[in-house]
């Protein structure tokens, strides 16, 4: 009996010692207090000579005016964030050099925005950047990625005043109707596909110059087109609208038309696009049909009678024509940049899989430039607004 107890005690003692050693052995000890972490909310990657400059935006919790932050609310003119930057031959080298200068551990798990400078995108391309930001598990594949006009770091530093951090403004903008959501994940899936090229929101910094209200805003100007990972051109204005119409992820927008001297603002609320590759006599062409639903936002023509079908139809025709023009413009631009941002190649692949692998796949770059597109559209004016007629018109 006694022997048995001693044996059990010895066994459990050994067990406890072994368990205790486990604590000392823990090699993957990633415990880190929040106070010791610098959360990167956004980073900007630029080219600087032969080097790559990485800039990160880090919020300063002490300056965010949270209650109980000891030093009191920090609204005293200090910005609630810091921007740190360093250079290196690779992105990771720059980051680790940056890390040596910081007392807190850089943590990329909350990075929601990555901005790439135009120079870098044009000269070196984004493919190497994608490797840098996807290789470590800390990075979010749902982070938005965009290309900036000029230096990317300037966008980080923008003082938008509406949000605490420029990163937050950019994130909100990039997921708003002003843009098409492009996350790291989307870019990767487009980059690896043959017959598809990535496009990015193209952002620039603009200034509000009202006295006492000076601020810097970030504007989504259009879309940057790439081919083989290198930036080849920019779609803006109507061409950008065309890209949005072609893209399946449609976001509503409005557009102003000149109808015989009267300006008319129409909102495009819904759009469906059908893209069909067609083979006629051995030549490939595309038939694109866009169906949009439009509504009237503002009409400067006081005499228009919306009860009249013909006048409504006229508006629809104007919209229809503009949709066709926009799409054509976008395609022309894409062909000029040789960037298949919509993935027309993939449509061919799905429609004619054998032909694609045999004939088109390897030469898609050259074929895409010369492919013909036949664009049609249907517009449906389905909403006239609250009043249905111009309330500014005198009663007759």
């Amino acid at each position, binding site marked *: 009996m006694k022997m048995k107890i001693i044996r059990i005690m010895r066994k459990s003692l050994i067990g406890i010692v072994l368990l205790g050693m486990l604590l000392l052995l823990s090699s993957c000890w990633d415990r880190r207090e929040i106070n010791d972490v610098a959360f990167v909310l956004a980073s900007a990657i630029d080219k600087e000579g032969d080097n790559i400059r990485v800039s990160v935006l880090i919020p300063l*919790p002490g300056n965010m005016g949270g209650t*109980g932050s000891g030093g009191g609310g920090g609204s005293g003119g200090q910005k609630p964030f810091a921007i740190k930057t360093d250079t290196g031959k690779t992105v990771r080298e720059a980051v680790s050099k940056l890390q040596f200068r910081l007392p807190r551990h850089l943590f990329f798990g909350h990075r929601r925005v990555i901005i790439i400078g135009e120079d870098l995108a044009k000269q070196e391309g984004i493919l190497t950047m994608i490797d840098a930001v996807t290789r470590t598990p800390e990075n979010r594949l749902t982070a938005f990625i965009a290309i900036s006009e000029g230096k990317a770091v300037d966008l980080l530093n923008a003082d938008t005043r509406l949000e605490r951090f420029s990163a937050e403004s950019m994130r909100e903008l990039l997921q708003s109707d002003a843009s098409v959501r492009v996350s790291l994940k989307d870019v990767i899936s487009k980059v690896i596909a043959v017959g598809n090229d990535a496009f990015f929101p193209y952002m620039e910094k603009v200034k509000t110059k009202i006295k006492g209200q000076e601020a810097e805003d970030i504007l989504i100007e259009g879309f940057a087109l790439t081919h083989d990972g290198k930036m080849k051109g920019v779609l803006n204005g109507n061409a950008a609208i065309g890209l949005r119409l072609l893209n399946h992820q449609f976001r509503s927008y409005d557009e102003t038309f000149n109808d015989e001297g009267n300006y008319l603002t129409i909102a495009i609320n819904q759009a469906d696009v059908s893209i069909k590759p067609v083979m006629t006599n051995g030549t490939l062409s595309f038939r694109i049909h866009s169906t949009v639903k439009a509504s009237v936002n503002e009409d400067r023509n006081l005499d228009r009678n919306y009860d009249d079908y013909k006048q409504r139809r006229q508006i629809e025709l104007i919209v229809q024509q503009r949709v066709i023009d926009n799409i054509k413009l976008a395609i022309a631009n894409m062909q000029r940049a040789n960037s298949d941002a919509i993935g027309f190649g993939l449509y061919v692949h799905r429609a004619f899989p054998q032909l694609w692998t045999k004939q088109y796949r390897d030469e898609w770059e050259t074929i895409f430039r010369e492919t013909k597109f036949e664009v049609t559209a249907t517009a449906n004016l389905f909403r006239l607004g609250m009043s249905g007629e111009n309330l500014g018109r005198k009663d007759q």
Partner: protein
Amino acid sequence: MPTKPKARSMPEGQLDHHAIDQFKDVPIRSTIEENNKIMEELFKDSSDIVLRKFDIENGPKAMLCYVDGMVTTSAVDAALQALMIFEGDAFTIDRIAEQTLPVTQASKIQFFKELLTNLLSGDSVLFVDGQDNAVCLGLRGGIRRSVAEPETETVVRGPREGFNEHLRTNTSLVRSKIKSPRLKMKSFVIGTETNTNVILAYMAGIVNPKLVEEAEKRLSRIKIDGVLESGYIEEFIQDQGYSPFPQVQTTERPDTVAAALLEGRVAIMVDGTPFALIAPFGFWQWLQASEDYYERFMVSTLLRWLRMASLFAALLSPALYIAVSTFHPEMIPTNLLLSIAASREAIPFPAVVEALIMEIAFEALREAGVRLPRTVGQAVSILGALVVGQAAVQAGIVSAAMVIVVSMTGIASFTLPRYNAAISIRMLRFPLMLLASVFGLLGIMIGVMVIVGHLAKLTTFGVPYLAPVTPVDVSDLKDVLVRAPWWKMRKRPKYLGTDNIRRQDPQQ
């Protein structure tokens, strides 16, 4: 259903003071003098025992014994009066017991053991000279607390009566709910010195007979000098002594006892405490409040889900906060994380130390509030709210986020209707916090797995603790994950092993 009992008996032959048992075979003497001598010797230095000697009118001497304060004095007076003006010549004890005395309960006794038991329970005992029997008069009385609202289990809707310290009051409260001869109340006397009356109640014909047998066996095995509360009994009869979880339900409510009896459980009521025991008691009863069955079923179902969520919150929220904030900050939404970071910026402690400080302070406050007189208790809660809630945050010792987590945990633990289950949950969150601080979410997973494994292994009177969820019985789930409307709960819980499964007429 109950499996073989766990060995839990006291080693034999160690209890040497069977005070009353010594008088088992001592007969009552036939002369007053002898009886008086025995009694005086027994109750030497016992000022509360009254030995009243008197003469029956025209007859022999007599002696009435009772414990002062445990009898109704006016009834004793009436009995004495009836005896003193006794007329006639036949002085048999039978005649006194059956005809003379204006007393509801009167019985003859022959041995001193019986006499002492009755006397010390509050009966009055009458010796008559020349008789070797004594008459036991049920004139119990004395001051006791009236039936009041149960303080630990209050309801908005439902009966407001609760048990008190008097066993007969308690059994009558249950009997008045279940007016059926099937309701059995088996009596036990436990405690060699206290001789505490214990009642095992069950519904014959509904309960699994093996369960009753098992309960009887476990009760009769208890050999202890005294039983002052049902907690003594609980620890002796539970299946697994070294478990953090209660395996017997305690309740102050007669309606809860009645409902359990009707389901086929057994109840154990102990004299001297308002807390009755109900067994078997499984995990899912933790979440069942008596009011669930009185309120509308949709509301009750939602409340049950709320309690389920609260159970997890009470167990896990401080641990999750520690794990997520120190190991996995990517799991917190960015803006929330920044708020937490801002509130933690000037805090000198790691999250786990902060959490432990706050949780221990909270437990101390709670304990102080329970123990202190009610008037002082309020001062404690004000002090706690000010010191812990505000001053500590302003001084930058703990973060506001942590105060929120701790108070949410506290509130969540108070939503559990079973106090004994809630305290075991509160206890278990400390090891989970330590695990979380060392291994992060992985540690919490390990802790939860250990707890779930233990729960799965645990039994309560032979019934699996997690029944009816595992082992699963779909028809029993109607009172577990939801509270089905009454007209759908046609059957008694199957896992209790009842033979009498129907509780409603299928043709109704």
